[in-house]
């Protein structure tokens, strides 16, 4: 059996986690704003950008749920080594979760928080092929997505979303690939009334966009 390979984390952990957090803070407070972030190395399935988010936010206080595609020995070992967070088998107990959109069958599996403690709702990190805010989509260029991607990540049509709500002056248009009906329904219908809900982070290879529970979403 092969020993899992440990990859490099942030070159300067103090500086790099701060910069990654600032990008996340901008993305979460201005839904639909695409920000850039990265970490030196990536793993099979785990983008360097997703790995950067994990290093910046996760530690022993944050139970993490990994979808079947992400629940590999390599990813578990590296996240343990760099962040030390506990991994949970039950999505409902996770403060953070990582998955491909195609693997999400029901949003009700995740914690939406309680009326008295709404902040305990899950932050769901979804890896997609592309996120973009421009009308001309550069994320889906002719080149194939990098090697090692799951068949679940096979190219799907972009979904164009119109966002409005706190953090957005009037409205914002973004394009996200690989969204399935479960996610689109969740975003449009908002079955959990505010302040309950799940905050979504869509991560592409180098960039990221957030849709928190406050955002009103319309599919174009």
């Amino acid at each position: 059996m092969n020993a899992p390979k440990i990859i490099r984390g942030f070159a300067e952990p103090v500086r790099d986690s701060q910069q990654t957090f600032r990008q996340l803070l901008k993305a979460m407070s201005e839904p639909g704003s695409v920000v850039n972030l990265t970490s030196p190395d990536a793993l099979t399935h785990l983008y360097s950008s997703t790995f950067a988010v994990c290093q910046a936010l996760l530690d022993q206080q944050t139970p993490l749920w990994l979808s079947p595609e992400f629940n590999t020995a390599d990813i578990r070992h590296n996240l343990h080594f760099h962040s030390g967070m506990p991994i949970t088998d039950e999505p409902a107990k996770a403060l953070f979760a990582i998955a491909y959109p195609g693997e999400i069958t029901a949003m009700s599996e995740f914690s939406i928080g309680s009326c008295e403690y709404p902040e305990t709702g899950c932050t769901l990190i979804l890896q997609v092929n592309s996120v973009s805010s421009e009308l001309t989509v550069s994320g889906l260029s002719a080149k194939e997505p990098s090697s090692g991607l799951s068949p679940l990540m096979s190219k799907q049509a972009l979904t164009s979303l119109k966002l409005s709500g706190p953090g957005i002056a009037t409205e914002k248009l973004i394009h996200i690939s690989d969204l399935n009906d479960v996610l689109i329904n969740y975003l449009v219908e908002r079955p959990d009334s505010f302040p309950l809900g799940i905050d979504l982070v869509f991560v592409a290879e180098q960039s990221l966009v957030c849709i928190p529970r406050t955002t009103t979403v319309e599919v174009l």
Partner: protein
Amino acid sequence: MSAATIRDGYNFAYLDEQTKRMIRRALLKAVAIPGYQVPFGGREMPMPYGWGTGGMQVTAAVIGADDVLKVIDQGADDTTNAVSIRAFFKDLTGVETTEKTREASLIQTRHRIPEAALQEDQILVYQVPIPEPLRFIEPSEVETRKMHALEDYGVMHVKLYEDIAHFGHIATTYAYPVMVNGRYIMDPSPIPKFDNPKMHQMPALQLFGAGREKRIYAIPPYTDVKSLDFEDHPFEIQQWDESCAICGSHESFLDEVIMDDLGTRSFICSDTDFCRERGPIEESINMPVDTPIDTPIDILRETL
């Protein structure tokens, strides 16, 4: 991070990395639930509660080497609290500091919002003494938490109504409660109600830290912030008949200053950067520069 400029033996921005991560997670949830107070594991800071330990912890979790920091206390850059906190972060992060509102990327404030309109990508960090707006009405945390969960805010309007019954008008002049994004009632920290309208649809991000009470809350940019009022007693801000004695401003928040022991009063801008930028207006300076006014100590000396 330029390690050479940081005091030896300390982590960047004082707090350890695990604490920063915990505060950062709380901040992300705070912006996702505008106006809701997220509990966090507040740490002891090297100064007493009440001096801005909450604001400092938020600033420490947010600040990076590229930031330009401004710190104000009641609008002024040169008062004890502002000078100390600015020196603290200069010592422990090495970041550039400024007194100019427009040049700052990060502004920590005690009890004022700068007069100059804040821009996108600026972050305003408030020092908050008591984050719970319902606390003076309901002392139990269990109860106030339930009231927020149920949106049971009638009692807040009763308090404002009692003002009207006693004084004929809403007498609350600072820490005036606001409704954020139509859901949570929030204490804007003890800013004068003069500043409340600036919070509404502000392009900058607003973060609030309460150190002793261990709560963090936030208002994302472009979010509705409405001061509570009644149809027949609409929200009003303070107004002055006087103007600033230095710059002549009629639009800014004015501090009343006692000039001598005879009770002569003068008014000056609370926001020192705003006042300096406007510059002195000749005719409005009513204090002659060459002949200093006798202070009580001078008078005492003469009589001795």
